[in-house]
Structure formats: C-alpha cells, structure tokens
C-alpha cells in the first residue's frame, strides 16, 4: 500500500515536472528537486541529479518550440552567453552569501513578478 502510494506520487510528480517545463518553458527543476529528495536523495545530490532530468526535457521541448516557429538564433545565442557568464558568477557567490535573507528577498521578487505577469 505504501509502495503503491509512493509510486503514484513519483508518477504524478514526474508528469508534473515535464508538463510544467514544456508549458512554461522552465520551472520543472523546482518541482524535480523535492521529488528527488522524496525518492531518497540528499539536498546536494537532488540538485545535481535534477539537472540530468531537466536536460532531456529541455531538449525535447526546445525542438517542439523550434518546430512551432519560436527560434531566433541571435537572441538565443545572446541568452546562452549571458546565462553561462551569470551561472559562473552565481556558483562563486553561492559559497559566500547563502543567507536566509537572500532567499526571502528572492521569494518576494518571485511573488512580485508573478503578480505583475498576471495583470494584463
């Protein structure tokens, strides 16, 4: 019984990770990390392993978007360049300032941007 419930949660969670990533073009990782933790990984491994889950999803979704006509080489390459530079800086910063204050400010920012996006 417990095993069946666990399987159901994993199945539902996996479907949600894919659906969210495909429909919103991102954000699946935020569901995938807790799902992996639920399946028994520690925080660090869950974060790293989530990347392996999201990468194929991103590739498949990208292909569907490209087929749908949403592709602009110039914009995509600019974004790739920027994201890679940013990620390197972010990874370095992570060791220095992972305080709760940063997390709270970031959450507030997400809520503000989310509410703003809902207003037409």
């Amino acid at each position, binding site marked *: 019984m417990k095993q069946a419930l666990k399987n159901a949660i994993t199945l539902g969670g996996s479907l949600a990770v894919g*659906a969210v990533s495909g429909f919103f*073009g991102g954000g699946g990782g935020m569901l995938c990390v807790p799902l992996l933790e639920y399946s028994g990984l520690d925080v660090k491994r869950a974060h790293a392993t989530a*990347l392996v889950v999201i990468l194929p999803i991103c590739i498949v979704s990208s292909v569907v978007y490209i087929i749908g006509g949403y592709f602009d080489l110039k914009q995509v390459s*600019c974004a790739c360049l920027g994201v890679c530079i940013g990620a390197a800086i972010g990874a370095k910063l992570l060791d220095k300032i992972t305080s709760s204050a940063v997390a709270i400010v970031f959450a507030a920012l997400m809520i503000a941007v*989310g509410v703003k996006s809902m207003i037409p």
Partner: protein
Amino acid sequence: MTAEHVIILVSVVGGIIGGMGMGGGTLLIPLLTMCAVEQHMAQAINLMAFVPMSVVAILIHKKNGYICFKHAAPIASIALLSAALGSFAAGVAKGYVLRACFGAFLTVLGIIQMILAIRRAVKKYKAKKAEEKERKQKKEIAN
C-alpha cells in the same frame, strides 16, 4: 544599447540566480518579457539557454559524484512524454493566456519558497539561541 545587449545583461542576471540554485530559469522568462520579448519566444530562449549551462554543470557534478542516474531515469522517462505534450499545448495557447498562467505559477512557487525560507531562518535563529544559552550555562558552572 541594442536589444541584444539587453538580452545578454538580463541573461547574466538570470544565470547568477540560477547558479545560486534558486531557479533562475523561472525568473529569466519574465525578465525577458519585460524587455519586450514575446512570451512564447522568452520560454523558448529559456529552454535553449539551459542546455549548454546544464551540460557544464552536469559534468562538474558527475566528477564530484553527486549525480544518481538510477533516480533520474524513471522520472526523466515519464516527464519526457508530458514535456512534449506541454510544449504542444504552449504552442496552441495565446501569448497573454500563457503569461497569466505563468504568473500564477510563479506566484505559487514564490509563496512556497517564502514559507520554506522563513522556516529555515527561524530554525537557524532558534539553534543559535539554544547554543548561546548552553554556553552561558557552561560558563556559570565553570565559575
């Protein structure tokens, strides 16, 4: 500053947040739409920009032994199906509908993150207080 410069700048910000492990992708999309990129296109850009970054990150994590393929495989195989369906659905949806849904999703995620962050902060504060108390008691005993 041209539109390309703006995209690079905004992506750097998204990358920094992502590199800190706080879901930069979800913020890169609204940042892009604020710079006049259409919603579908912003989502497509976010998906594609994630690929090179994650390949590098995976290689680093793999070296450190943090990646468990055994746990990733079942989730990834199921999620691939719903990802294809989700992408098709996004292609059909109108830009403003997608934007509003995305906003709702982001708000929910933000609220969850906020609760978790505050909880963690309270826990840390309590642990610190308890430690201080213990130290004081030890000092008194020593005296």
